[in-house]
């Protein structure tokens, strides 16, 4: 390339301004030292692993109240339109607020309160003010993931919903459909992160242990071999690290993304529902490693709400939320989901895995019946019965395969490619075996949960959208009208309208049949 001297100077200046602008718009809390690493390593299927203990919770930084975890020191509040700034400041002062911030992709404010104050009480006080639309504590969202038990090998889930015939009608949608995965991130690119890993305290089984500092380590990342492809990923965004690198430090989001759009017919690994779509990785929940490495944000209601707004504003037509929580309602999330559906995006939400833990109402899933174009998804096992963990309630609208390893063993889970957890969860067996993680080694894992059933519905929605049903409300109706009724006749609280039937929905109605 040949450029004149002035043009070259202009180009350099333009680039410099661009870089400064980019840095201004997205603050960076971490730096990747390389974008080029070796391709990911595939260690094959993990169907003979010993049973794994439940994955530990991601953070010990939150208080406990009403059974749910939330952040100390801040609450989220939305004022009614037109409320003067002075009036806003006066109201938040009543709960001892010190600062108020309007985050990006949000129509609410984050109000900082005293770290010792009870955020739920502060939110309740604020919610009584006439100019406050709602106020709530910043409840933590977690993945709807039931930990893995050992063993298995096939994707029984697709035959259960007759996907082979559905793909005859619509072979995996097209790249024009963008599906946002709001989760722990996605293994979408290669990189090396250099990071100082400090000492920390965390759970090992039922005890708390001190894990030693690892010093400065280079942590490798690789794109999941069976998921990544040319132009596969669009508009990645990380709301946990507040940058544009939503790398998965857990494996949950990568597994979920695989069920939605794993590359198919590529002579490698496993299949995905809508294997031609583009994936938008939006990281809205933090994992253990995010916390260990010092991520500046955590996966709370407000962070997820911002992620929803971001995904919709950047062209996502289907949003997958294999995440949720119990506890008090989440108006922030309700409003975000209404925003999504009213802007033409379909939202699929996990119904929850807490059936055996008192079966509490799950949010944001419980908003599904009141929002056309948003569905709450329960899970069934290979026996087409509700999985033991799958939450029930009037908000469950559909079920999809999520696995039931209690009945079928390891291979009764949902098989997808994600990290080889042996190289990720190095903390799980205590300090003695603790070491730096590797996010470039992959395996095919059987996982179970409504986290796993939800992406079936998201992929299904992408197929329907490609097929010609463009309205989120119509997509939901098409899913429900053709669902295979399970359990008690008609709509019920275990299965909702029933098991998704992609082929029937994609085929729709004929004149006579």
């Amino acid at each position, binding site marked *: 390339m040949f450029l004149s001297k002035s043009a070259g100077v202009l180009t350099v200046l333009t680039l410099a301004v661009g870089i400064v602008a980019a840095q201004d718009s997205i603050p960076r809390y971490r730096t990747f030292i390389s974008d080029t690493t070796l391709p990911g390593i595939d260690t094959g299927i993990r169907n003979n692993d010993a049973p794994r203990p439940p994955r530990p919770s991601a953070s010990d930084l939150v208080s406990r109240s009403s059974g749910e975890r939330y952040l100390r020191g801040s609450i989220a509040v939305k004022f009614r339109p037109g409320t003067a700034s002075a009036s806003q400041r006066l109201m938040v002062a009543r709960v001892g607020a010190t600062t108020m911030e309007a985050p990006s992709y949000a129509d609410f404010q984050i109000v900082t309160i005293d770290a010792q104050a009870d955020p739920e009480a502060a939110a309740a006080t604020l919610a009584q003010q006439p100019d406050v639309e709602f106020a709530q504590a910043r409840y933590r969202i977690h993945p709807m993931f039931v930990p893995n038990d050992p063993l298995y090998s096939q994707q029984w889930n697709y035959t259960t919903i007759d996907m082979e*015939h559905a793909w*005859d*009608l*619509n072979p995996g949608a097209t790249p024009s459909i963008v599906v946002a995965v709001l989760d722990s991130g996605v293994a979408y690119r290669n990189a090396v992160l250099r990071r100082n890993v400090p000492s920390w305290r965390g759970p090992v089984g039922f005890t708390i242990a001190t894990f030693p500092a690892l010093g400065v380590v280079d942590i490798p990342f690789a794109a999941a071999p069976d998921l990544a492809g040319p132009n596969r990923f669009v508009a990645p965004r990380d709301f946990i690290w507040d940058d544009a690198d939503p790398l998965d430090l857990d494996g949950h989001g990568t597994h979920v993304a695989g069920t939605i759009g794993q590359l198919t017919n590529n002579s490698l690994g496993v299949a995905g529902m809508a294997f031609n779509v583009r994936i938008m990785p939006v990281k809205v929940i933090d994992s253990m490693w995010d916390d260990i490495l010092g991520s500046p944000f955590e996966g709370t209601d407000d962070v997820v709400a911002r992620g929803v707004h971001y995904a919709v504003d950047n062209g996502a037509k289907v949003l997958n939320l294999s995440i949720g929580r119990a506890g008090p309602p989440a108006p922030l999330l309700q409003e975000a989901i209404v925003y999504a559906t009213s802007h033409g995006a379909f939202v699929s939400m996990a119904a929850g895995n807490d059936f055996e833990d008192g079966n509490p109402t799950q949010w944001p899933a419980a908003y599904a019946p009141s929002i056309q174009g948003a569905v709450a998804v329960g899970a069934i096992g290979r026996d087409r019965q509700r999985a033991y963990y799958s939450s029930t309630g009037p908000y469950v609208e559909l079920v999809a395969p999520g696995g039931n390893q209690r009945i079928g063993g390891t291979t009764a889970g949902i098989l997808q490619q994600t990290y080889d957890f042996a190289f990720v969860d190095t903390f799980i067996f205590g300090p003695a075996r603790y070491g730096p993680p590797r996010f470039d080694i992959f395996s095919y894992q059987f996982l179970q949960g409504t986290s796993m059933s939800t992406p079936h519905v998201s992929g299904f929605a992408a197929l329907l959208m490609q*097929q*010609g*049903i*463009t*309205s989120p*409300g*119509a997509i939901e*109706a*098409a899913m429900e009208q*053709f669902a295979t009724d399970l359990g008690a006749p008609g709509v019920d609280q275990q299965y909702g309208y029933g098991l998704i039937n992609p082929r*029937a*929905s*994609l*085929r*729709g*109605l*004929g*004149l*006579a*049949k």
Partner: protein
Amino acid sequence: MTRATLVCAAVLLLVSAVPSSAQNAVTMRGFADAGLTVFTATQSFKAVLGSPTGAVFGGGVEVGLTRNVFVSLAASRFKKTGQRVFVFQNQVFKLNVDDTIAVTPLQVSAGYRFRGRRPRRIIPYAGGGIGWYRLTETSEPSTPGDDTKTTHAGFHLLAGIETPIRRWAGAAVDAQWSSVPNSLGESTTSVASLYDEHNLGGFMLRARIIVGR
């Protein structure tokens, strides 16, 4: 069928009421016709095919029992390809799955020509009869059990005018109304069920070329 039987009986009564003096030797003619049909199940056909109307082609034979009374056997065919659909809040979403509808009626009619005492260029006629309506619906791709092939009974009334254009040829234009009750909408995956339209009949205008005396 009760209504069809009644129509048939009425036509036979009409035939038997013809004075014997008016009767001549039995004649036979063939005909071919083309026309336009509008189905009674307007919304259903419009949703799938984009329009409740379409071209119909057919032919048959007609036997003149007397100078005025005739019976005919006619077959016709309507065929059109549209797309399977999903309907939500009155909005029709085309699903990019080709759906071909074919309706093939086989109709037996009896009628009366109003010739009058003096020869006329324009001869009105009217009649009615019963029919069997073959409905096929095929989509692509499909699996066994997806497609529809059914036959339903119905009845029809017709009226038209005929004019001779040669010694052995004539032309006619007629209108026909048919009813094929309970022939649509049984399946829950039918748009006819959604719109509560159950009749495969409709209104048809056609032009006919007749050969024979």
